[in-house]
């Protein structure tokens, strides 16, 4: 009986595991400092190894900005990303892989109304922390989602 309960609980937790494994990697202080200043330090599991290699190869022209780091830092961060990359690839044609262009991202956010993406507090789909309050620390769980404009009135201001 005990075993049955255990088996059941494992099954019940499976979808949760499958979902969070992509964001489960620990964000190192170096990664957060170097790649979490202009935007949230994105979980490495959200892009494939090849995507990260592509991204790191042109940091001086990183989505229209200069995000270059010194050679030693570059090597350390590339290694960290390669070790923790996921299996999901961004669309191949893109010059710069975008997490927000992956099928996974689109599917996960399919219920988000178009008006939310246009909200000034959100500004861009890359602004994870606008809705995911734990994003800075790499937490994207359901319990920590607060979508601007969809909160209760007293939280509006």
């Amino acid at each position, binding site marked *: 009986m005990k075993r049955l309960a255990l088996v059941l609980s494992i099954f019940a937790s499976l979808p949760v595991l499958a979902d969070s494994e992509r964001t489960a990697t620990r964000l190192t202080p170096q990664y957060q400092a170097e790649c979490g200043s202009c935007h949230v330090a994105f979980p490495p599991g959200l892009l494939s190894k090849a995507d990260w290699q592509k991204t790191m190869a042109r940091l001086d022209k990183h989505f229209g900005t200069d995000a270059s780091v010194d050679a030693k830092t570059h090597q350390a961060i590339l290694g960290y990303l390669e070790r923790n990359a996921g299996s999901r690839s961004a669309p191949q044609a893109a010059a710069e892989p975008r997490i927000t262009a992956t099928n996974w991202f689109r599917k996960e956010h399919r219920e988000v109304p178009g008006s939310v993406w246009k909200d000034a*507090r959100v500004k*861009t789909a890359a602004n994870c922390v606008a809705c995911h309050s734990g994003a800075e620390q790499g937490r994207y769980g359901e319990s920590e989602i607060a979508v601007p404009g969809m909160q209760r009135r007293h939280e509006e201001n």
Partner: protein
Amino acid sequence: MKAFIILPLLLASAGAMADTPLRSLVYYTTAARQNQPDFSADSMRGQSFALRKWGVSQSLPSCATCHTDRPGEAGRHAITGKPIAALSPAASPKRFSNPAKVEKWFKRNCNEVLGRACTSAEKADFIKFVMEDQAS
């Protein structure tokens, strides 16, 4: 020649002395004096530098685009929307307290906004402007 002696001294003392905005200001002022012996940092010049639209980047035309026109005010990255802590050390105590970080951001942001590296004089003026916000 004087600067030639002072600079290594400054660098050598980096470990012993606490890193402060003032230290960065002294460092860049000393460097600027190599080319311009009578240089002294000026916050008004720093302010016009920070507000100037350089015409290089469309999305990031000036320092103020992301950092606002007041150092005491928190900013926002113009492309990603991520909040940026105020530049003024009075408002954000950690600001300009790590020389390597200061250099890193001047390198990136100057490249971005001015399309070239900033001179030591420009950096000194900028830090002076940002530090003087304490008074306002």
